[in-house]
């Protein structure tokens, strides 16, 4: 029987967020960096809002309300958003997970170690682990999954694994990932769906229906799925972690509407719900008999500026746009006042990669400064857009159709119009919006940035040549910092590299920000230990980033 620590959950400003690869599996020190005041008043960021946990209780079932349905449960085919990932953690075990300190550590894997130049990563599996269908989890299973599914032509993780030139079987429980180049951040890839082993025999037998019949090694096994209605799992009696899971079963129900999801929690139709919407977090905090497991991650709202086209290729214009916006007003529109601090970079204040220097360098509301920069540009005979001197800028700001985003767009328009800019607003449906970003067919548009991946992955995608460099911005300083992130596991060096990149971004403003996103799993207070998962060796896990829980550790007192 596992021992459970932490009689009282403390969610306040956890030291989590970003992924220090640091000391990864090599036993190096933790990254620290938390600024939490666990006993402080509820202000910005997560708050202590959780009832007494007590001892684990075995049995019982719960129903969880999700933000969205998932298209398929097969890694390589499924688009695992926050909703999909939290369900996946019931069915699958990730090979690698992140600790509370931000390190990566083997979870389903027993160990993972790199060679000297970080081009070959050797992963050893735990013995005697089976998939739900009885197929053993071994090296050959990993290779089959990699060769036949994850790197198939239509796989949606093919690009994520593009650096892996081969996956070789070393012995029955050992494989090595051979990379095309040094990559210190590689283990972070295995925290996502490329690192969730599924039964190759079950997938082969199910054929095209494999995505509807998931078979993993996780604490729960699949029972039934009615799309858009219910995904039902039951306890895996042969789970490799003794004493887990506590629950007999879970029903996951996608309830896309925020209001009715909250109403369902209030009425007791569901026992837990996830949300990424700030106004809903605010509402959930006010509900009686509800515990909130919050997490302030790196994901932040804001806008991207297409710096590859005039006039936005000129720093003065980008800076003018940034100085003209009042971030607290924008945060208020999205319901984040009192929940989220103003964002200034790709990493939140809770992240070990947050940079004070970059935060100070990011433009803050100053209309005079904005006007000066703007006037300087439009009166410059050499202005980059070739328009006559004195001609005001005219551009379009795009956002997907959503009442809150409409309001946000109007506020941006109002700020920039005060400078003399002629800002048109355009509503673009989400699918076209993303495509516009990839093809850089936009001027300025709303966008979300930042995630919980290794900073190398996040920043490389955003600021090197490629489809995910939506702003078109690159610089030698960023390239230099990325090279450090790619080639070293030393925390201090990596923090310094990220700070250098963040400072460059603050000074060159390819992005505008609102606030970081506070996510929440709100539960009836009979549901316990939602963020209390640990590694098999007892190391504390990273809680509930992105409202994704490790359900094997959860119990109910009802």
């Amino acid at each position, binding site marked *: 029987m596992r021992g459970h620590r932490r009689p009282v959950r403390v969610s306040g400003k956890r030291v989590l967020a970003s992924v220090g690869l640091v000391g990864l599996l090599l036993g190096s020190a933790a990254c620290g960096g938390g600024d939490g005041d666990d006993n402080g008043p509820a202000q910005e960021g997560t708050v202590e809002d959780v009832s007494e946990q007590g001892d684990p209780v075995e049995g019982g079932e719960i129903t969880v309300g999700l933000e969205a349905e998932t298209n398929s449960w097969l890694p390589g085919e499924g688009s695992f958003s926050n909703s999909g990932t939290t369900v996946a953690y019931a069915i699958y075990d990730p090979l690698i997970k992140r600790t509370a300190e931000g390190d990566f550590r083997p979870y389903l894997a027993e160990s993972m170690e790199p060679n000297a130049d970080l081009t070959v990563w050797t992963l050893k599996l735990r013995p005697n682990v089976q998939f739900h269908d009885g197929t053993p989890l071994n090296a050959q299973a990993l290779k089959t999954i990699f060769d036949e599914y994850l790197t198939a032509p239509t796989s949606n993780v093919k690009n994520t694994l593009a650096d892996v030139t081969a996956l070789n079987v070393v012995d029955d429980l050992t494989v090595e990932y051979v990379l095309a180049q040094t990559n210190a951040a590689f283990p972070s890839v295995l925290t996502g769906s490329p690192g969730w082993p599924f039964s190759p025999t079950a997938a082969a037998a199910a054929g095209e229906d494999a995505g509807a019949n998931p078979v993993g090694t996780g604490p729960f096994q699949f029972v039934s799925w009615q*799309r858009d209605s219910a995904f039902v799992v039951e306890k895996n009696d042969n789970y490799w972690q003794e004493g887990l899971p506590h629950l007999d079963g879970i029903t996951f129900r996608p309830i896309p509407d925020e209001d009715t999801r909250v*109403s369902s929690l209030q009425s007791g139709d569901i026992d837990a719900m996830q949300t990424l919407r700030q106004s809903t977090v605010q509402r959930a905090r006010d509900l009686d008999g509800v515990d909130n497991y919050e997490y302030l991650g790196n994901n932040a709202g804001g806008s991207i500026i297409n710096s590859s086209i005039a006039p936005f290729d000129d720093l003065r214009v980008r800076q003018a746009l940034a100085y003209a916006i009042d971030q607290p007003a924008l945060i208020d529109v999205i319901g984040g006042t009192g929940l989220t601090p103003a964002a200034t970079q790709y990493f939140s204040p809770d992240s070990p990669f947050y940079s004070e220097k970059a935060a100070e360098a990011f433009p803050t509301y100053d209309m005079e400064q904005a006007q000066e920069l703007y006037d300087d540009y439009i009166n410059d005979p050499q202005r980059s857009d070739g328009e006559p001197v004195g001609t005001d800028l005219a551009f379009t700001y795009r956002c997907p159709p959503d009442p809150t985003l409409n309001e946000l767009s109007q506020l941006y328009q109002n700020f920039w119009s005060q400078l003399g800019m002629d800002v048109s607003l355009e509503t673009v449906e989400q699918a076209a919006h993303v495509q516009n970003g990839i093809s850089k067919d936009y001027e300025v548009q709303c966008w979300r940035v930042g995630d919980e991946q290794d900073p190398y992955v996040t920043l490389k995608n955003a600021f090197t040549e490629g*489809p995910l460099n939506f702003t078109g911005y690159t610089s030698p300083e960023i390239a230099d910092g990325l090279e450090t992130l790619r080639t070293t596991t030393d925390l201090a060096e990596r923090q310094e590299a990220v700070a250098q990149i963040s400072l460059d971004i603050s000074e060159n403003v390819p992005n505008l920000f609102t606030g970081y996103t506070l996510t929440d799993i709100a539960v009836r207070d009979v549901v316990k230990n939602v963020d209390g998962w640990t590694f098999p060796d007892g190391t504390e896990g990273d809680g509930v980033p992105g409202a994704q829980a490790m359900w094997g550790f959860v119990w109910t007192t009802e």
Partner: protein
Amino acid sequence: MYVLRRLPSLLATLFAVSLLTFLMTSLLPGDPALQILGAENATPEAIAEVRAELGLDDPLPVRYLAWIGDALTGDFGRSYRTSEPVAEAIIDRLPVTAEVGILAIIIALLVAIPVGMLSAYRAGTRTDKIISSTSFGLLAVPNFMVAIFLILIFSVTLGILPATGWVNFTDDPVQNLRSALLPALSLAIAEMAVYTRLLRTDMIATLQQDFVTMARVKGVSNRRILFRHALRPSSFSLMTVAGVQVGAIIGGSVVIETLFALPGVGRLLLDSVVQRDLLMVQGVALVIAVSYVVVNFTVDILYSYLDPRISHGRSAARV
């Protein structure tokens, strides 16, 4: 004969519907290949590979003919997004939308017929005015507002009906009805207001007809006059609108199924549009359009039953 005469126009309508459905979905901005791959993996090479595999680079006429040819045999293809057969997905979800929609129409008619008749019978009185103003008020409230209001009352406050979720009839008929009731009621509110107003207007006219006066003179009871003599000839507009309103109910189901988290066709359509799952959108839109056309065709047939003059080309009316 009347059915046979209408058949060519029905087939022409269905062809036009299929063509428009295909064209409109094909012209939507946003690349399905991008949705499949996700932004992280959307390299130009990967996008090209997926587009080629799905045949998205073929000319539109070629794609249309391939799609409609397969659709005529019942093969709507497989979803780009979920890999499930489109026909199977629609068949799985149709009972949910149909049950909620039919329940909504039944609730609306059960309320509207007696209330509309009462309003007509008491035309000009205080009762009539209360019914009329209530109907106008209900017409003005969008169904999603009604839904939220109903959830607050019946789920959150009283706790007697579920706020969200669906139970299949085959699993538990009672729970199935409970899960369908609030969504159906949300759709029914506006419908019952429309039906009430229509029936009232038609019935006021009917009640002024000579045969009603004759019945009254003969001493026939008011109830018998209303239900046996006046209701049938007053039902034409009601029936026409009930047919046309099937479209409104299907449209409303997109919103209501999302709000109540029901696994119906409306929600499938919405998700598929957002995700650019073109084959699914085309399949669902076609099925909805066909349902709409068939329902209205059936209403036309019922007309001829209610009023034989119609099946005779209104020749009797001209005599």
